[in-house]
Each structure stands twice: as structure tokens, then as C-alpha cells.
């Protein structure tokens, strides 16, 4: 029970710090603006499918979310361990009864609360504005709610990943470099490499068997496939997203992938924190 109180203290302090250094404000603004920009600049003029505006924007926003949410998540978590080593506060914190596992979990919860709040406000405002302007049907609201909640799950994965990377080096600078590298590899290069392989393979065995599994194994792609697969729309989807409707796995496996990534990253963060000599 006292352990819970300690963890609440850690999480609350993380949350407070994120407010003080304007992180919450900035990320909320970013989420709101990007979502609104997609809604009104991207698919706006078509006009014909007004009631579908929410659904359509949810589809395009799921692609943008894959870039934006991991970036924000890594930004909030990359120095959570290395930063405390560098400032000397880790030694202080670990001299108290707080356990290392408690520290990792509590920091994760604090960061996640911050990110979830920013996503909820940002996408919430954008969703409300779109619904207000174009109206909304049940399918649209559902797609939007699904997007919002899975975006939080995707954020959780990358927060945990950022914390794991943060447990590797002793300097925040190195931790930042690792975080940027992780973002580039997982979010940008991974997809490019897969597309390249598919082109080289020209519809061979790789494309039919290995490729869908590899796409699904990436947390960002899993998030996107899950959202796109459940959106009934006649909007054309291309590239990797074409898999959304031809995926040889049940849709829920995408969620399972995200949960596995989350659990694995948290476990790695915990294991790395255990061997740190503050």
C-alpha cells in the first residue's frame, strides 16, 4: 500500500513537471492542429461525403498518428532514466524505499497520463469541430473513438520504448540520439525497407507469407492496420495500407502486437534499470 503511495508521488511529479515545462500545452496544440489541418485541408473540398467526414479524417489521421504520437511519446520519455542519472537524483530516489520496478512503472504511468491527456484533448477538440461542421454518424464516432484510444496505446508502447532506451546510456544526449534513431527505424525506415523488399520480390513467396507478418510486427503499422481495417470506407488505400483489407490475420492480432510491444519494452526498461549503478 505504501508502495502505491510512492508510485503515485513519482507519477504525480512527472505529470506536474510536464505541465510546468509547457510540454502538455505544446503537444496538445500539435495534436489539435494536425488533426484539424487534415480534416479541412486534406479531405475537405470533396463535399460529397459530408456525413463521412469523421470517418474519412480518422483514416487519414491514423497515418499521421503513426508519425506524430511515437515522436511525442519518445520526447516525453527519452531522458526519464538517463536524465535522473545525470542530475544525480536517481541516487537520491533509489536511496529511499522506492524500488526500481516501482520507479519504472510509476514514471511510465506519469508520462502516459500526460500523453493521453494531450491526445484526448487534441483529437477530442478536432473531432468535435469536424462533427460540428459536417455532422457525425455512429460509424464516424466509433472510428474516432477507436483512433483516439489506440493512439494512446501506441503512445504507451513508445513511452515504454523510450524508457528502455533511456536506461542504456548515462547521458541524456546519448538517450536523445537513441530515441531519434528508434523513431527513424521503426516509423520511417522499416516501412521503406519492406516496400523495397516487396518490389524486389515481385509478388513471390515473401510478399504472400512473410510480408504481412513483418508489417504487423511493427507497432506503428499494427496501429494503422487495425484502424484502417475497421473503417468501412470506399476511399482508396494504397501501399502497405492495402493490407488492411487483405490481412491474413484477425484484426485483433494488431492490438495483441501492440500489447506485446508494450510488455516487452517495459520489461526491458525494468531490466536495464536494475543493473544501473546510480
Amino acid at each position: 500500500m505504501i508502495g502505491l503511495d510512492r508510485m503515485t508521488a513519482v507519477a504525480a511529479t512527472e505529470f506536474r513537471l510536464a505541465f510546468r515545462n509547457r510540454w502538455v500545452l505544446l503537444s496538445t496544440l500539435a495534436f489539435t492542429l494536425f488533426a484539424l489541418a487534415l480534416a479541412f485541408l486534406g479531405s475537405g473540398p470533396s463535399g460529397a461525403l459530408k456525413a463521412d467526414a469523421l470517418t474519412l479524417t480518422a483514416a487519414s489521421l491514423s497515418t499521421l498518428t503513426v508519425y506524430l504520437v511515437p515522436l511525442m511519446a519518445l520526447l516525453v520519455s527519452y531522458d526519464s532514466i538517463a536524465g535522473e542519472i545525470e542530475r544525480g537524483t536517481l541516487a537520491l530516489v533509489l536511496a529511499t524505499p522506492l524500488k526500481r520496478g516501482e520507479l519504472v512503472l510509476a514514471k511510465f504511468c506519469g508520462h502516459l497520463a500526460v500523453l493521453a491527456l494531450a491526445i484526448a484533448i487534441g483529437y477530442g477538440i478536432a473531432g468535435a469541430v469536424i462533427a460540428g461542421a459536417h455532422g457525425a454518424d455512429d460509424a464516424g464516432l466509433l472510428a474516432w473513438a477507436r483512433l483516439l484510444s489506440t493512439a494512446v496505446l501506441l503512445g504507451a508502447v513508445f513511452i515504454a520504448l523510450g524508457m528502455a532506451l533511456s536506461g542504456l546510456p548515462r547521458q541524456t544526449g546519448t538517450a536523445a540520439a537513441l530515441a531519434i534513431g528508434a523513431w527513424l527505424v521503426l516509423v520511417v525506415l522499416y516501412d521503406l525497407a519492406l516496400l523495397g523488399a516487396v518490389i524486389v520480390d515481385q509478388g513471390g513467396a515473401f510478399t504472400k507469407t512473410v510480408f504481412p507478418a513483418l508489417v504487423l510486427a511493427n507497432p506503428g503499422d499494427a496501429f494503422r492496420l487495425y484502424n484502417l481495417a475497421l473503417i468501412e470506407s470506399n476511399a482508396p488505400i494504397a501501399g502497405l495500407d492495402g493490407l488492411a483489407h487483405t490481412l491474413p490475420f484477425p484484426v485483433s492480432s494488431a492490438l495483441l502486437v501492440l500489447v506485446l510491444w508494450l510488455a516487452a519494452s517495459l520489461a526491458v526498461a525494468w531490466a536495464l534499470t536494475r543493473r544501473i549503478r546510480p
Partner: protein
Amino acid sequence: MTDAAILSVENLTIRFGAVTAVDGVSLSVAPGERVALLGHNGAGKSTLFKTVLGFLKPAGGHLTIAGATPGSDVARRAVSYLPEQVVFPKALTGAEVLTHFARLKGVAPKAALPLLETVGIADAAKRAVGTYSKGMRQRLGLAQALIGTPRLLLLDEPTSGLDPVSRREFYAVLEASARAGTAVLLSSHSLSEIENRIDRIAILAKGRLRAEGSLADLSRRAGLPIRIRVEAAEGRVEALHARLGGERVNGRSVVVTCRADEKVGALARLAELGPDVADIDIALPDLDDVYRHYSGVTAQGAIQ
């Protein structure tokens, strides 16, 4: 004494690869006792603290805190630590930092906040730590360490960066804690600073414990020589040097040394020299000499 000790270190050795940072050190601290760990840069002071906290695993030897293993729940509850270098989050206020650590230690924040008064920064309690001066941050660090009246206070160079007045207040706070039964182990570089403020001193050099005891004990046991500087009358320095031996300095003076118990005899002999002597100056060994003696560092020009 050992069974009553809150901290007991026996024959402790800690290695970093090939470097032996702490080498066969034994030390114990009893409740209410203030012990200073003195040593040069790299002597192993911080390493010893980190081992007491359970961050480093000993390569040899044994240590207990309140009878428990370092890093165990019992030990963590008994110990409070102030690291050598700590930067609290700049955006938090002093009161928030204290509240945070009180909750980590399972102490009601209400009970911890008066400590800001104790260390003299109650006025700045609601200000961001980023606006604190170095001394104020150090005081906040001490307040943090005092939360929950720990049984053992580990303070790593707590007074570096404090002005003399702050230092005095700092040791007054420590004295009050010690009187209430807290054992204090602090590290420092200067023996003169802790004079009269500490019960016992342990001197570390290159990881080994060179001496341990009260300051009075240590200076007596060191048996350091007294330096007598004799200034010769005009043109008599050669003659003086021939009769006294010793060392010539400044062209006009001769320096001789003697043990404390030989002082009176030596002065009597000097008095017999009559007009050859223009002036006499006696330098007793000071605390820095005592420290140097034990830490194996010889002062420049010291007489062996």
C-alpha cells in the same frame, strides 16, 4: 560498541575492474555519533557511501545497516542520503521537492515541510528551485535528507559551496539531529572545517583507512614536529646555521624542528645564543598538517 552500531563496515573492499577504490576498510558508527570521512579526491569516500546504500556490491568484506543488508527495505528506511552532486528539478518549488521525497519515504508531507524552516529556507518554500542560490539548494538537499528522522544520515561533501555562516548553521542542524539519536557519516576534504563539530574522524587515502579517532587523539598520535624559525642577527646566519643545523631559508633565517616535548629545552638553547638571534617564531602543527600526515601527502618543504 559494534552491536549497538547503526552502521558497521568490516574489512570492506570494492573494486572497479582493476581499480581498488576501497581496500579493507572497517568502520562503525553508533546512534547519536557524528563521524567524518576525510580523504583526498578519489580516496574512495563516495564509493563507500554508494556501497552503504546498496548501489555497489563489495568484492570482499561485510557491512550492515541497522543490522540489515544494504539496499534492503530495513536499510533503506534507516538511511537518508545527500549525494555529492544533485540537481533537483528546476521547475518544482522547494516545498514540492520536499513533499515528493516525503511521500517516497512514507512520511506525511505535513511532517516534512517544517524542515524547510529548520534549514532556513522557509521563505523560499513556494519559489521554483531554479531560482535558488547554490547554498539554498544545498540546504534543500539537507532538508530532504532529514525527512522522517533517519537513523543514519549519509552526507557526501555536504558543505562544499557553503559560506562560513551557512556552514556553522549546517553543523548546528547536524548536532541537533545527532542529539536526537541520528548517526551521521559525512565526508569532507578539510580537517579544519570539522574541528569541534564532529565526534570522530576516519581518514581514507587511496581506499585504505589510515587513521581513526577523535581529533585530539589524532593530532597527539601524529606527533608532528614543531617548527622554530630563528632569524639571525645581521651577518650571523652562517654561524647560526653551523651551531643549530636545520635548514636555511630566506638568507637570514634558520628553521629547526623539534618534538612537542622538546620545545622548552630547544627554546632554552636558543636563548643561550644571545646576540646572534634577532627573532624567534614558533609554528605548531595545524590541522592540515595532521591531515597530511595521515593521508600520506607531504606538504612542500616539510621536515621529515
